């Protein structure tokens, strides 16, 4: 194990009192990133020990995001080529264009987020937590393609500091930091994020292809919100060749991610299923008025609904933790998202707000179920 030796040799310099102890938390992060740490929590009282530590479990989420990410990159290029009227057959070209658009965003998101996390961990003399590995890849996937990098950096810094670190870091946050990033962008820079006409890249990476000025395509949700007919077929919205946030368009790619997550036991299938049930029920009860060629179930395929249900609502930190509570939590997310979409024309996309809202209520749901369980048992014991 060459790498292991190198790390072991470097260790003394980074430990307390060593020459490079200022970067100790960074070294620790790298070491536990490559190798499972030797020390685990001490066994005290009733505990369940699992062989998988949180860095490994976090990695499954990143793997599950890859299909959606790759398709998102391809779709950026495809939408760009449609916009400028260029050839749309060239899959490789489309993908490379999207890759070039995506990479700076991923780099900025990780650099800013991890930079802040490492600085705070070093200041508090703690380890760097691994939660940001997922947040850092989620953030670029839920922002518009043409979002300037400095705005992305500001929003990421805001979310990491105010949604996560002030609450005590990974595992303590009330809100999902990636969604807070998007909410910050949404309210602070509404011109970038309004969700009705988004997100075909215009002229930021014009070194690769020709540019279009002032072109913006309407998303299906934007058309619905404005009461216009939807110009995308159900098949388009399922495959994902529509304008939209980078990761959210393809239901198929998200479904692959969902299978990986459920198979690995990372995400709760109860939350995913109940979110879709809640959304479907509400979409059936509450159709858009005057949208003829738009079936009620297509609500679940457009916008960020599927992406939010699979990758955002299932975040184990901010979701409900009681098993029955997960059904309620998911159901209300799905229902709220559709209600916001249909009833509030100011917010064509309701998924982000629905999940953030239910993040607040998750502890309350848990409390009710735990309390009712206690009462039930107390009654049984009293008999």
């Amino acid at each position, binding site marked *: 194990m060459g790498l292991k030796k190198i790390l072991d040799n470097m260790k003394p310099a980074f430990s307390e009192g060593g020459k490079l102890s200022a970067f100790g938390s960074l070294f620790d992060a790298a070491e536990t990133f490559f190798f499972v740490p030797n020390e685990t929590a001490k066994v005290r009282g009733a505990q369940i020990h699992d062989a998988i530590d949180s860095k490994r479990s976090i990695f499954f989420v990143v793997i599950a995001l890859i299909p959606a990410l790759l398709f998102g990159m391809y779709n950026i290029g495809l939408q760009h080529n449609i916009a400028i009227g260029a050839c749309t057959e060239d899959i490789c070209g489309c993908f490379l264009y999207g890759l070039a658009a995506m990479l700076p965003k991923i780099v900025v998101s990780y650099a800013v987020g991890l930079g802040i996390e490492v600085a705070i961990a070093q200041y508090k003399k703690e380890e760097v937590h691994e939660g940001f590995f997922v947040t850092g890849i989620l953030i670029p996937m839920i922002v518009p393609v043409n979002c300037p990098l*400095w705005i992305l950096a500001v929003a990421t810094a805001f979310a990491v500091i105010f949604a996560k670190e002030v609450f005590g870091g990974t595992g303590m946050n009330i809100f999902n930091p990636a969604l807070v990033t998007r909410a910050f962008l949404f*309210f*602070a820079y509404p011109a970038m994020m309004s969700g009705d006409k988004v997100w075909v890249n215009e002229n930021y990476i014009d070194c690769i292809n020709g540019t279009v000025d002032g072109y913006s395509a309407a998303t299906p949700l934007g058309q619905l919100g404005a009461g216009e007919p939807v110009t995308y077929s159900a098949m388009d919205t399922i495959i994902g060749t529509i304008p939209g946030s980078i990761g959210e368009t393809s239901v198929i790619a998200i479904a692959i991610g969902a299978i990986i997550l459920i198979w690995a036991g990372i995400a709760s299938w109860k939350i995913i299923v109940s979110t879709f049930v809640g959304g479907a029920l509400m979409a059936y009860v509450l159709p858009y008025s005057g949208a003829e060629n738009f079936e009620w179930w297509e609500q679940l395929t457009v916008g960020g609904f599927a992406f939010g249900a699979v990758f955002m609502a299932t975040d184990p930190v901010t979701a409900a933790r009681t098993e029955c509570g997960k059904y309620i939590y998911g159901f209300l997310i799905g229902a709220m998202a559709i209600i916001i979409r249909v009833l509030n024309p100011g917010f064509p996309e309701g998924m982000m707000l629905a999940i953030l809202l239910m993040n607040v209520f998750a502890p309350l749901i848990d409390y009710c179920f735990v309390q009712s369980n206690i009462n039930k048992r107390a009654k049984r014991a009293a008999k």
Partner: protein
Amino acid sequence: MSLFSKENGEVFKSPLNLNNPVAVQVLGICSALAVTSQLKPAIVMGLSVTVITAFSNVIISLLRKTIPNRIRIIVQLVVVAALVTIVSNILKAYVYDVSVQLSVYVGLIITNCILMGRLEAFAMQNGPWESFLDGVGNGLGYAFVLVVVGFFRELLGFGTILGFQVIPDSCYMENGGLYFNNGMMTMPAMALILVACFIWAHRSINKEQ
């Protein structure tokens, strides 16, 4: 006891920093969120509160031995209400546009916790001069937070300071730059976060609290 003794200096200085009504006692938050979207109303509001706190403190301090204990709150309210009405009318007469911007919040100074707090906690027990210093100190302590929050909200939310364009036009996205005003700064939610940041910085500097 001389007018500018050490104790009196302390009475004046402590609410400016270590006993700041907003940052330490966390009073008067509602108006701090409502009026600070721009710097000018924040300054006017801070000064109005300073004047009202100072003079209501003096008046109550003069009356403190004659006010029956059971109706003291009513008496305090009458004094504050009279002063608020005077200040509100002065604002309408001389800075009408700001007074329109502040709208109900001038009238709502009457419900500002800082005022009632100082009357109850200080003016009812101390002489007029100390009460005056205490009122001015607390008012300025409040005004200071408002000005800091208003400064950042106006700078980041509108790109102006006191109405003057600070961020050059050419930086904006419409004109080919990369800059956007932060719309969230114009909302009260962001004011709350800014006040929190102020408190954070204040506590980090004054560790002994």
